[in-house]
């Protein structure tokens, strides 16, 4: 699975996603009560986790450290 928080920009997108997901749960709680909100919370969180797992799979497998050759030269870049 690809690291979903490689940059600050990606971390910011997590904030937006959290607002969307938990905002929906809060609206569900206000309209339908605690049980409806709990059901929505479980469904949304599980759905989001599965979606991330399926969509973020990298196209190319990252080479192992011992296969990288001169890229692991220790310059930190």
């Amino acid at each position, binding site marked *: 699975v690809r690291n979903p928080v490689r940059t*600050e920009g990606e971390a*910011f997108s997590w*904030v937006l996603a959290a607002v969307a997901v*938990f905002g929906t749960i*809060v609206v569900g709680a*206000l309209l339908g009560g605690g049980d409806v909100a709990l059901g929505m919370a479980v469904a949304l969180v599980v759905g989001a986790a599965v979606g991330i797992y399926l969509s973020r799979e990298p196209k190319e497998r990252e080479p192992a*450290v011992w296969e990288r050759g001169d890229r692991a*030269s220790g310059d930190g870049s």
Partner: protein
Amino acid sequence: VSAVPADAHEHEHHGPPAANVSSRVDARLLGIYIFIGSEIMLFGSFFTALFFARVIVAGGTWPPEGFHLPVWLAFVNTCILVTSSFSMHWALTSIKRNYRAGLIAGLTLTFLLGLTFLLIQAREYTRLGFSPSENAFASTFYALTGLHGAHVFVGLSLLLMAIVRSVRGHYGPAAHDHLGVEIPGIYWHFVDVMWIVVFTVVYVL
């Protein structure tokens, strides 16, 4: 055979040899990932305590009779913290465009919004009318919100250092020149996401 004289490298390099790098991720970024991973587990344990107290210990009514939380005040605080994530993102976008005034303004705004959040939370504590020792509800409420407040304080400290460094001109548009903003930014967004979860679970559900 190298054309460079054998002693040339000795004159170029001073100090100990460079550390071996076995990961494609920068060591400082890797550090914040591991730290955030441990933080998620820490918050997870506090949430577990809350759910245990709510489902197993309390059983029925939650919050217990006579206990009320200021939901709308917490909602306003949530909006403040979410807004601070936007200003944080603006700050980093600015330095990537070499717009230093935007960086300083964004970081300062983020700091002030975070400080406002913390002060409102402190004021809320003084008006709640119950203490952590009263029952399981009060204990878990203060534990979760207090733990988060401590993280906001740490984030504010990081932001303050980033503001000082940005005023001194330490950051640049290249990726390796603004890690000192990027890493506090990732941490700040984590604190923000965690509050959204805390608000939903503690105040709404």
